[in-house]
Structure formats: C-alpha cells, structure tokens
C-alpha cells in the first residue's frame, strides 16, 4: 500500500505540474494580452507597453515561467493584476465555499441516488422503476443553466422562499445543490440500479437468502456492499469535477467559490488568479481521485493485491 501511495503521489505531482504549465503557456500564447484590455482600445503602443511593464508581462515568457515556478516553490501564487490581492489568499477564501457546496451536493445526491436506484432495482420494470427512469431521462436532458434560472425565478422571485444568489446560510444551499444534484443523480441512479440488479442475482446473495437472512439485511449488507464499489468511483469522480469548478452553478448563483473566481479571472485576463484557481482545481481533482483509489483498495482486496 505504501508503494502504491508513493507511486500515485508521484503521478499526481506530474499531473499538477503539467496542468499548471499548460495553463501558464496557454494563457500567454493564446488568450490575449491583459495590458491591451487595461487601456482604451486602439491606444498607441507606448502606453500599452507601460502597462505591460507594470504587470510584468513585458518580460520573456520563459523568465515569467521561471519566476512563477520559483514563487510556487515558496508557496507564493503571485498577486492579482486587478487589485493587488495575494492570489493564495483569494483562492483559500474561495476553496472552502466550493468544497462545502461539493460535500453537501455529494451527500444529498448519493442519498437520493441510493434510494431511487435501489428502489428501482428492487422493482425492476415496475411502476416505480419506470418513474425513476423517466426522471433519469428528463434530468439528463435538463441544462443546468436553464434549471438554475427556473428555480431562482420560482422559489426566489415568485415565492420568496429562498435566496436567489450568494452563500448566506443553510437555505442558500438548496437551489445550487438541487441544480447540481439534478445533473449528478441520473448517472448515479443508473449505476446503482444496474449494479444492484447484478448483485441481487449473485450466488452469495442467493446463499444469504437460502440461509434465511432477512431480506432487508440481504439488501443492505450483502447487496449494497458489492453495489457500492462502482458508486465510490463515480462519486469520487463527480466530487473531483465539482471541486474542480462547478462553473455554471457558481456563476448563476454568485457562489463565492473557485469556479466563479476563476471564470471572472478568465474574462478579465487576470493571469495570476486563473493560474491559482486552476492549480487548486487540479490539486483537488487528483487528491480526491487518490482518496477514492485508497477507499476502493480498502473495500476491494483484489485492488490491494494488485497494488502490491
């Protein structure tokens, strides 16, 4: 397990290094000069150059890259082009907000998916199963952006029950979590339903029933344990994706997380802030996947053995 962990840690470092390097160069080579944005369009070159010097983007790109890496080694992500705020401070302020939204969403989505997925599997081809499958189809076809606006118009503007934007308290989680959950649950439900259907026909489940173990215990202990394996992987991947930036939801709900921070920075070509946001997103993604692998290995002995 130690060797497995070390190997994965090295892989994670390479992935994160690759991502930050890619983002660094893409921003500078493909996405435009922030100095141009900060002066009136059409302004003569000398004033643009003056702004470049202030931002430090006038130096050769490899020099900028070297300074960026040196800063990273010191834990310094630089300062924002637009206000001089330390990027690390801003990213660390936003990260817990995204993490909290992701955690609540995952817990809520998993609970919903488990109930609906298991229920559908237990009554396969029955009325409940059909209703669940309809929900899955509709949810899959529903764009998050549209759903978020509809939810806000109905629950916030018309009924006045819930906040339309911001992260202000428990009630402000309701609409963003529902929006994310509607996108997340269809895949989870389908996976659980399928996995559970297969598990229920396995020999060990039939043996458990033959031994006279109550059906509830057969389902919750023998069935769920096996069906949970793909769920862990899927939830881990989805958690990574949400942490890496639920951009649409954070944008529509003005959620002060990594997604909104990065998106705003991209629009205004605030390079240091984009780099900081992407670095944190990449780290979150690989760390979550690492934890999922560990959890998977802990649950399934075959993976542990393979790691050796």
């Amino acid at each position, binding site marked *: 397990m130690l060797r497995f962990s070390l190997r994965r840690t090295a892989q994670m470092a390479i992935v994160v290094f690759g991502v930050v390097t890619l983002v660094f160069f893409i921003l500078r080579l493909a*996405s*435009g000069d922030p100095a*141009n*944005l*900060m*002066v*009136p*369009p*059409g*302004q*003569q*070159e*000398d*004033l*643009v150059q*003056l*702004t470049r010097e*202030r931002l430090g983007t006038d130096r050769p790109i490899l020099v900028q890259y070297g300074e960026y890496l040196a800063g990273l080694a010191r834990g310094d992500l630089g300062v*924002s*082009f*637009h*206000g*001089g*705020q330390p990027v690390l401070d*801003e990213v660390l302020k936003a990260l817990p*907000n995204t993490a*909290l939204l992701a*955690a*609540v969403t995952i*817990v809520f989505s*998993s*609970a919903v998916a488990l109930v609906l997925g298991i229920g559908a599997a237990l009554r396969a081809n029955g009325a409940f199963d059909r209703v669940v499958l309809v929900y899955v189809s509709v949810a899959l076809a529903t764009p998050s952006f549209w759903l978020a606006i509809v939810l*806000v118009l109905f629950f*916030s*503007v018309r009924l*006045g029950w819930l*906040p*339309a*934007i*911001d*992260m*202000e*308290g*428990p009630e*402000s*989680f309701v609409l963003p979590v529902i929006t994310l959950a509607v996108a997340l649950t269809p895949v989870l439900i389908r996976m659980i339903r399928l996995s559970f259907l297969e598990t229920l026909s396995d020999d060990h489940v039939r043996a458990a029933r033959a031994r006279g173990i109550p059906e509830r215990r057969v389902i*919750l*202990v023998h069935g769920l*344990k096996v069906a949970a394996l793909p769920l862990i992987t899927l939830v881990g991947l989805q958690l990574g994706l949400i942490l890496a930036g639920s951009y649409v939801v954070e*944008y*529509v*709900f*003005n959620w002060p997380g990594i997604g*909104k*921070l990065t998106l*705003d*920075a991209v*629009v*205004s070509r*605030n390079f240091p802030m984009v780099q900081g946001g992407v670095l944190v997103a990449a780290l979150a993604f690989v760390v979550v996947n690492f934890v999922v692998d560990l959890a998977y290995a802990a649950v399934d002995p075959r993976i542990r053995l393979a790691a050796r």
Partner: protein
Amino acid sequence: MRHRRRLTILVFVLAVVAAACTPGDSEGDTTTTTRAADTTVAPDTTTTTVATAEATTGPSGSVRFLIAENFWADWDPYQHTAQSQMRIEAQIFDYLVDVPDTGAPPVPMLATEWTQIDDRTWEFVLREGVIFHDGSAFDAADVKASIELASGATDVATLQAGSWISTTVEIIDDLTVRLTSEEPFASLFAQLRSTIIVSADDLANNAEAIKAQPNGTGPFRLVANEPARKVMEANTDYWQGAPQIQSLTWEFIGDPDTRLSALLAGQADVIDRVPPQHLQVIEGSDNLVLDSVTGIESVNLFVLPGRLPIWDENRAFREAVMRSIDREVLVTGLIQGASAVATSFLPTETLYHQVGDPAYSRDVDAAQALLAEAGVPDGGPEFELWVASGFLPRAEEVGAAILANMEEVGLKPKLVVTDLSAMIDDIFSEDGTGAVYHLSWSSNGDPFSHAFVYSETFAWFFGDERLQELIDLSATTTNPTERERVVQELQSYMWEQLWHVPLYNSDFTVARNSRLVGLDVRPNFQTVFYPASISE
C-alpha cells in the same frame, strides 16, 4: 458496513452543520434618516465660494449595487481607464471641482474658489479642514503631486495624461495653488472633475500600498477589496457631512439575469446596465424604479487604418457603408431604453453638440449608387466585422442586423463574434484580420475628451491633419464662443469625412429599489451615492 453507514451519516451532518455555520452577509439596519440639503453655490467660471452642509444624522443601512463591468485594474492612480473603477473612485476620492451636468459651471469640491490669472494659469483656493481616510490632512502639496502626475508633468507616464495638457502646480501657500498648463487648456475643469486628488505622501512613500488600498478624502472609504466585490463604509469625517448610507457594496455580476433575479428577490438594491428585455419586468414591479439617461458614449463601427484600403482612400465607399445601416432600427428595436441614434461623432450630451447634416438615414439605392461611384458596384472587397459578445448590450444581434443591412446593398462583410479580449488583441496585433469593430468610447462630456479617441494618439487615426488640428484646437481654445465654433466645425468635418460609422449613443439604465432615494445617475455613467439615503 455499520461503520460506513455511520461515516456517511457523520459526513452529512458535518456538511449541514458547516453550511449552517457559514457566516452570511447580514442585512444592515435600514433605518430611515434624513440629511440637510447641501447649500452649494454654483459659481461663475472665474470665482466662487461655497458653504458646506452638515448632516443631521449619522449613516445607517447598507446598499448593494450589482454592476455589469468587471474590475479590470488595481487602484494605481491615473494608470487605468476601467469605467467600473473610475465610478468607485468617485465615492472614495474627491476632485478639485465637480461638474454635475455637461456645460454647467463647475461647483466647488476640494477647491472653494478659483480665479483665472491668464489664458494658461488658474489659481485655486483649497478647502480647509479636509482629511484623508488615514487621518492625514489635505493641503496644496497633495494637489501638486496629483495634478502633475495625472497631467504628465512628471517623469512618470500615466494613462490619464493623454487627455490632459501637461500642467504644473505652484504652491502659493498651504491652501492656495496655481495651475499652469503648457498651452491654454479649455478642458481644464472637465479634466479636474476626472482627476482624483491623492495624498502626496502616499504617492511618495506608499505607492505600492495604495494600489490595493486607496486612500481618499471622499464620502466612503474602501474596507474590503475582493476581486469581484468592493465594500465601502461611510467616512463619518467627510467634509460635507457624513453620508447617509453606512455600508456600500459594489459587486461585479456579469450575467444580467442573475443581477435581475437578485434585485427582484431583494438581495440587491441597485443594478446597472439593465438590458432592454428586462425593462418591462422592472416597470411592472411596485417597488422598483428605473433611472435612464442617454450615456455620453458613442457606439461606433471603428475602422482600423490599413485593414481595408478602399476605406482609407474612398469617401464614397465610406458613405455607402454608412447609408447601408438602419441605425433607427438598431436603437428602437434592439438597444431601446434611452439610447439615441448618433447625430454626430460627439454624443448628444456633449458640450456644443451639433446635429449633423445630412442625417445619413438608411437608403439602399443611395448606398448602391455610392458603391458605383466608388468604383465597386459589386460591393467591393470582403472584410471582417468584429463584435464582442458580453460587452455592449445585444452586440451579437446588432452585428447580425448590420451584416444583413450591408449584404442587402451588396457589401461583403464577414461577421466575427468573439469576446472583448480577443477583439482587442486583433486590433493590436500586426497579424490581425479585422477591419471594422463594434466598440464604444465614453467621456466626461467635454468635446476634447470625447474627440480625443479620433486623434493621432489612437490607432483609429487616418493621418487626417485637419482633423488633428481641430481636435487640438478644441483643447486649446479657451474663449467659450470661439471654442463652440471650433467644436462645431470639428463635428461638421468628421461628419463629412466619415472615418468611422457612428451608430448610437448608449442607454444607461439603472434599476433600484424605491427605498433608495437620491441616487445621482449621470450620463457619464457615474452613479454617485453620496446624496443617497434609504427610506422606509
């Protein structure tokens, strides 16, 4: 299994508890207060005095303002042209004078009196007892440091210097200064209204610090400088009396639907740049109010010299393009609000505005005849028309409408829809492929400040010496009658030459909760919160 079930429950409980413990933005007290009316006396243009007013009650309540433009820059004085931040600076800083309306005489702010010494020199008496937010006293040294830096009279180049004539400041005593421009400067007062007064000590010793923490003498001081959110608090020591609003938050939210939802749900008090499709919703609300003005902003098709040679060489082709576009439909059908068809290269609210003749209304036959006169009856070469989505209201629709108009007369535009950054990169790039750009230019209402964008300082200049001469004269002609004549000649000349295509003057619509009263919405896009208060 049991352990895992417990773990799941624990994670859920922790998540909910953490969510419950998350600190929210508490709503501030919205107690009604009243403020004594200012007794500012509007002076004539040579000498003036002013009496300050004292507020009768202290500040209270909070106001949240959601704006459509991101914060592009830091707070380094005079080194940015970000409209969003200039608007905030008007809350944090003061100017020597205020010019509440275009063409109106200046009124005192940090200067209480002024006297013209000669055609290049003005003497200003400064207000006594004004202090910066850090507690330091304001005096003549601050004016000298600020004006000389802003106007380009020092070794430090600034972005703002372009709209100034270099001006030096002589300190007569602690509260008297004499400003001397290199040439007679007709836009002096307009520029003074656009030039914040910064502490000389800050410029000398805290140059880095004030990029993140501005230190002004204005009615509000910045207390939180987040990337997309700026929070200000009332400056209770303000020389005109404390503001009536205790906490003022400006926040960038790019999505107009999100801004509207927040306003309708009561989570915002004011939103700006209300798009036309939202006007009806707001008008139908009992507790919301619209403030619409025609902005001092020209939305043009700017053409870059050298990218479309026939444009540079052939006036008939330029007029054909102008006459191909139905600008009336753009205004009434798409932009709406208080927008107006451009009748000059200077917006309606600019000093000495003059309606151009002819009107250049859409005329397909005339446009086709002009193309024939230009030697390109087939419509001439292909060219790229660039519009930036998410910048000017309904830019994509405007671009599509113009494209259809042009194609109908035989022109061969290719519409390129992109974001603002990519468009600006294309303008600056030697390898850029665009020729015509849908962009805007706003100013403080002074004719020179507005015409400046067509001058040799900018890439839009076609080497027209007469145009440059008239723009220079609009800055240096100080006699009002003579200046009016110069500015009108400038407008006639530009209207005749048609180096660019003036489309419309922007709508600037702000929607607010009716409990917020006294908000000053100006055509130069300033939204001044100092007179405002919150009613019950």
